[in-house]
């Protein structure tokens, strides 16, 4: 449950509302009454790393592991975003100093927050001008190539936070179970941007999944992303009425990949982009594997009173286009 609180911090800092645009959650800001997607206007995004290490992770280790995580996002062939290490700094992350900084801070009071990302936004244009990531040194960390038992893998957590730094919100592609004593344990996740981290010692979060790739490519499209890939769109209804916050999963039967999205407005509209052409199966479920606040502002009323189900038709994603309006009808629990 550690990252779920991390998102709450992020949300408090930047959310106007989530964008009812394409897939995944993207951070939105309101500029002049208009909703804009939060993103960097210029790349490479220059970042600094604090020159303070922690037990088991020196500043050089931190920079190297963060560099690998940045490189993983930058290597997505259908996304144009790039990052550049600008040097070490004595400044701690979280300062409004015009420098995007990654580093450790001791925040023992945040006992379920491994790391958090904050933003500084240009109020006139809605673009990002600074984004800092702090890693909570109250937890044990590791940069060992194979991971270390009982220590959180820095590269995995950095990969997640850099997704936020780039403008991505959380994905709901994961399954969890409640733990005794509170919180949730991840049984499986198919997105680095799932809000809850794997257990300490795991390095399974170092690899981007189809959902992450679709998300970053949607924000920063490159190459033939818009021509070669397609999208699915439609609306989710219950008893004939649109519902907000339903989690829709598109499964590419040929490639075995899953991409998730949500119904994101009062009309119950959803859209998932960056999908490979071909037949897809659509599954719709309520948000029940993480706190709703991990995905949406607390003020939004998310409908979770419906059963998991599938649409009884095959949904075909065209190359460079949209499936056309799909209606997903769910039934009350």
């Amino acid at each position: 449950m550690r990252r779920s609180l991390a998102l709450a911090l992020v949300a408090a800092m930047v959310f106007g509302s989530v964008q009812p645009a394409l897939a995944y959650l993207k951070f939105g800001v309101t500029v002049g009454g208009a909703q804009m997607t939060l993103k960097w206007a210029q790349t490479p995004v220059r970042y600094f790393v604090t020159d303070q290490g922690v037990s088991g992770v020196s500043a050089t280790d931190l920079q190297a592991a963060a560099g690998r995580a940045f490189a993983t996002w930058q290597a997505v062939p259908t996304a144009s975003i790039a990052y550049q290490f600008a040097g070490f700094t004595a400044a701690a992350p979280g300062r409004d100093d015009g420098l995007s900084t990654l580093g450790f801070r001791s925040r023992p009071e945040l006992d379920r927050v491994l790391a958090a990302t904050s933003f500084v936004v240009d109020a006139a244009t809605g673009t990002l001008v600074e984004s800092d990531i702090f890693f909570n040194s109250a937890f044990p960390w590791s940069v060992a190539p194979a991971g270390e038992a009982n220590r959180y893998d820095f590269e995995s957590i950095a990969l997640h936070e850099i997704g936020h730094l780039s403008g991505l919100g959380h994905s709901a592609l994961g399954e969890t179970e409640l733990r005794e004593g509170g919180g949730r344990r991840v049984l499986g996740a198919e997105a680095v941007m799932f809000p809850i981290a794997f257990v300490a010692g795991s390095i399974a979060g170092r690899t981007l999944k189809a959902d992450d790739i679709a998300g970053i490519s949607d924000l920063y499209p490159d190459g033939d992303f818009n021509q070669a890939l397609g999208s699915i769109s439609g609306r989710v209804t219950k008893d004939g009425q649109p519902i907000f916050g339903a989690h829709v999963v598109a499964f590419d039967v040929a490639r075995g990949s899953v991409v998730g999205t949500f119904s994101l407005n009062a009309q119950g509209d959803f859209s998932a982009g960056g999908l490979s052409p071909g037949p897809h199966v659509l599954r719709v479920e309520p948000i029940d594997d993480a706190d709703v606040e991990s995905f949406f502002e607390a003020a939004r009323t998310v409908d979770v009173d419906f059963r998991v189900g599938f649409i009884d038709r095959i949904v075909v994603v065209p190359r460079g286009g949209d499936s056309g309006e799909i209606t997903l009808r769910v039934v009350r629990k």
Partner: protein
Amino acid sequence: MLVIVPTLDARAARAQSPAAPQPGRFEVAIGSLWTGHQALGSNDANETTSAGGSLTLFSTSSDLASAAGLEGRVGVRLRRRLEADVEASYARPPLRIAISNDFESAAPATATETIRQFTIGAGVVWYPPYRVRRGSRVAPFAMAGGGYLRQLHESAILLETGRFYQFGGGVKYLLASRPTRPLKGLGARLDVRALVRSKGIAFDGGHYTSPAIGASLFVRF
């Protein structure tokens, strides 16, 4: 289906040379082609566990259901026992994806769509050097061929292409024959084939084989 049946002298068929499988050099045929069910494999929607393993969110199993369609063919005799064919077919097989084993116990479901499938190809027909009996109207044959496959999804927004190969055998039965006239014969053909399809709607990149039965009427010139 509209079939033109010319009036011919059936007795002439019995008079044809037993060495010649069928009279005439050219053959035009139209009929139906039934294609059997093709399993397209299974695939799971998986999530990654903390140990790097897989957790199955749900399972799918796909198939292209059996369907009857139309088939046309134009053949030309190259040698005494060898013909070359050009053929085309059209069918609308249902594509089905059965969904089960949902991690959160969603009810099993089947997602479907109807495919519009076109083929165009070529092949050879070979008549073995033996007769069922002297003067018989029946000519057994073996066939093999292949060609190009187009499959259009129901929503007509995505076209899949691939190849098909087929081999099998059957019989042609001469209903009527008039070897000395321009329209030299009328007959029926029945064949059984193994139909191998690659690419097109393929969920694992492999080859899919299914049985097929063709039945047609032909005229020979």
